């Protein structure tokens, strides 16, 4: 059906969506916030009150600075605006200070910082292959905008739980968009900035490294001078970053900074297991130990007493299967992404191939990494959205990954008050993504096969059991972590499946760099 009015203003819908989601974020100002709120308040306080040399040594609060220096400078900048809201929040000793003005300021800072994200999404939409003549709701750029701006994970992690992921992912998406637009130097610069804002993006650094080296430093074209020039540019970039670092710190600080950034003392798994391979590993270990005791293959007294299901962030031993060390996880991670990197090196496939490799790196690190947070799944979901609106197979993988990944974020908001919000928003995003992608790719049958659909539908009874039925049973007191375990194991299946499918699609896709002329 044709809309009653002509779409006179092509960009007004973007503005409407952005404003709409901002209004929603404003309404969530008074919602529950996690300890991350205090973390950021503490960082505001210490960057404001102390000289830079002491930022990474300060330990009055338990929430020490564990993000790279550029983020610390960002907090420093924010602290100057914070002064006008409530000076008390900038006092380091005011632990857990959360006056209404503080909450308002911090929440607003996240909402305003999201402007970077909005801009990045706009740029990404420009790189899509538009289908002219479709009505607004069926346009890939519209669908992508909603999938990104109204992303469920970002909304609940940033605007309820409290973090600055929108801003950071904005920088990432902008970098990707620049690569799509062949402005590679800017893309590389943005990524370097991103790494200095949050080091978790090291997960995807290999993809960037290989892609940039392959395509711009060692190209097969005749332009050897060109490629060497690009190589120099990127090398200069790295040197610039190093100089930036050393200008901020006395040389000796680097080990301290690094020790804060990479705290390997924490265990293999977080209190709530991220839905990755190690969750499945843990459950297999538990199952084997129970079976072993039952069939008298193992002596119950010889098994280590505490186990992963205790839920504390400490290092524990596995009972039956071999224990996993940080080095082992690193090896597994590298092994998991190596095939993708090789593939990109041999058959680059342009910016889209790079993006696919990026998602695989993010997902591989999520699957095999040490002490992974479930929030890290967003690093795979958000870039995948770009691919999802352009290819059928990617849309399918996106649906499985996003629905499962978003559901795995549910335990982050455990308060009763937020329960309706997370259910409503999850349904909102899920219904939109399912129906819009289904409509976009309606030629060629159903998007999800029956098995996948059943798996996703299984999330509904899982939610009902974990959040409604289980708390009323008697096991709630004896095995309080059982629902969390169930959730993470069930989601791990979906995430693993998506990972495998994504790999298959990367390894089997034909080389279409020659076909794609337009970007």
């Amino acid at each position: 059906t044709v809309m009653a009015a002509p779409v006179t203003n092509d960009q007004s819908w973007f503005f409407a969506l952005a404003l709409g989601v901002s209004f929603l974020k404003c309404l969530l100002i008074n919602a529950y916030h996690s300890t991350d709120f205090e973390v950021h308040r503490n960082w505001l306080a210490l960057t404001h009150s102390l000289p830079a040399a002491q930022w990474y040594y300060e330990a009055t609060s338990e929430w020490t600075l564990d993000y790279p220096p550029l983020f610390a400078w960002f907090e420093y900048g924010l602290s100057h605006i914070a002064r006008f809201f409530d000076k008390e929040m900038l006092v380091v000793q005011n632990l857990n200070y959360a006056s209404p003005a503080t909450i308002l300021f911090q929440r607003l800072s996240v909402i305003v910082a999201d402007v970077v994200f909005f801009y990045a999404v706009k740029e990404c939409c420009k790189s899509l292959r538009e289908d002219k003549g479709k009505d607004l709701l069926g346009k890939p750029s519209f669908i992508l905008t909603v999938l990104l701006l109204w992303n469920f994970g970002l909304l609940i992690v940033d605007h309820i739980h409290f973090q600055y992921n929108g801003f950071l992912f904005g920088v990432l998406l902008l970098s990707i968009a620049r690569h799509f637009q062949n402005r590679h130097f800017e893309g590389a610069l943005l990524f370097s900035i991103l790494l200095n804002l949050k080091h978790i993006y090291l997960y995807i650094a290999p993809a960037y490294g290989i892609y940039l080296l392959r395509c711009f430093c060692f190209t097969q074209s005749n332009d050897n001078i060109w490629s060497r020039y690009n190589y120099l540019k990127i090398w200069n970039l790295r040197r610039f970053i190093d100089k930036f670092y050393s200008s901020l710190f006395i040389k000796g600080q680097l080990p301290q900074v690094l020790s804060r950034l990479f705290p390997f003392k924490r265990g293999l798994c977080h209190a709530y297991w991220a839905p990755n391979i190690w969750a499945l590993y843990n459950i297999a270990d538990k199952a084997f130990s129970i079976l072993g005791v039952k069939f008298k293959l193992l002596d119950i007294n010889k098994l280590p007493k505490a186990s992963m299901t205790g839920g504390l962030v400490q290092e524990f031993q596995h009972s039956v299967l071999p224990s996993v060390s940080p080095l082992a996880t690193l090896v597994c991670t590298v092994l998991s992404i190596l095939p993708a990197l090789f593939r990109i090196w041999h058959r680059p496939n342009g910016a889209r191939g790079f993006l696919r490799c990026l998602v695989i790196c993010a997902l591989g690190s999520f699957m095999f990494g040490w002490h992974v947070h479930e929030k890290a799944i967003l690093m795979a979901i958000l870039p995948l959205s770009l691919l999802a609106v352009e290819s059928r197979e990617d849309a399918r993988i996106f649906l499985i990954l996003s629905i499962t990944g978003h559901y795995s974020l549910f335990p982050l908001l455990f308060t009763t008050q937020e329960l309706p919000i997370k259910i409503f928003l999850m349904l909102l995003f899920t219904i939109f993504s399912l129906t819009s992608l289904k409509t976009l790719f309606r030629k060629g049958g159903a998007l999800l096969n029956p098995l996948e659909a059943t798996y996703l539908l299984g999330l509904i009874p899982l939610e009902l059991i974990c959040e409604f039925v289980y708390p009323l049973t008697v096991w709630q007191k004896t095995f309080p972590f059982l629902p969390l375990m169930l959730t993470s194991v069930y989601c791990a299946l979906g995430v693993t499946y998506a990972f495998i499918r994504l790999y298959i699609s990367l390894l089997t896709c034909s080389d279409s760099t020659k076909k794609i002329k337009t970007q």
Partner: protein
Amino acid sequence: MENWSLFSLCVLLGLTSRWAVSFHSYSGAGKPPMFGDYEAQRHWQEVTYNLPVHEWYFNTTNNDLNYWGLDYPPLTAYHSLVCAYVAKLLNPEWVELHASRGYESHSHKLFMRATVLFTDILIYIPAVLLYCFYFCDGFSKQKVATALCILLYPGLILIDYGHFQYNSVSLGLALWGILGLGLGWDLFGSLAFTLALNYKQMELYHSLPFFCYLLGKCIKQGLIGRGFFQLAKISLTVLVTFALCWMPFLSDPKQPLQVLHRLFPFGRGLFEDKVANTWCSLNVLIKIKTLLSRETQLFLSFALTLLFILPSSLKLLSKPNLWQFKLALVNSSLAFFLFSFQVHEKSILLAAFMLPLLVKDGLLLPYVVTSLAFLFLSLYLLSHLTRTNEPLFWYFPFLVISVATFVWLEPPAKFPDLFPVLVSILSFLHFLGFIIYFNLVQLMEPQRKKSQKKTN
């Protein structure tokens, strides 16, 4: 995208906004001894659960009518009773007779908010969806846009989920009534509306159009024969519904009288607080409240209300079709609001002009956000779907400025109530303009582009 998915997205957006608003403060939070409407609703649960029916509306040792006595019709009382049963299951302290006065806790707030959400989902939202689906003209996208605008209407959200009330029940039931009439199910429509009336007496504002429409329809079908039969069926439905609702109160003639006395407090004055109606605005110039005697005030308000309703009702009587019906609803409710006795500002449920009330409740933030969102959204959608632009957009900055002045400027010491009064008067002038405009539209029936012949 399919219709069902678009509609469900609208519903989910509406539900999310509602619940997000409910995070904020409620009426009378932390303000002993009287607290506010929230405490009133909790108190009614306490009263209906612990006391026998014949004591609910009476001033007894156990029931102090000065502390939020019941002043809504029986259906509200029954609703409170049901909620009280649930409350008792969850935490008996919430409805303990006398001991639970002023009870405030996080879990109790969640419970109360949940009851509002529950009835909203059960009654109001399905009615809105069906209404938009069946009775909106235009393409499916326009229907969805209308549904979104109605569901995001800040007035209802803020009053129900912020201040705390159950307007969605009575409005929802009334909407079911309208739906019934529109689909030609007159009996169902009458039943639904009678229930709405028995939930909140404020629905009297809509009663005359219902009456005139149905009467006119029956007359058209011929007073001898089908029409008469239909009229009899409708009257029977209404009477039986009333009887069922009031059954516990019919045993003793004193009961219904007392209930009516509570419902229509003619003992109070012409108006309380700042309301955007004629009397309040007039009071600024001429102190009618003190000048005229109570009887004269009653007579004046009755006369003027009647005067303003009559034209539209008579027109509806003569031409009972849906379009006339809808307009008559608007005109009738406006007339009652502007001229009747003891009107509360909530009666109008129009966002921008309830600012004073909401600021008192600590609901400034959700008010600003939802109103701005609603205004922006409705103006945006309106301009895209109907190709009208200019006249509406000047409204937006105007309202923003008026809100801003109200919040940030200090009134001069001589007139501490200056801003609320100004807002009231401004709103009153708007409503006066609306009632004149809508009356003209209804009476003169200007040519419409599409003729929508909805068969009754």
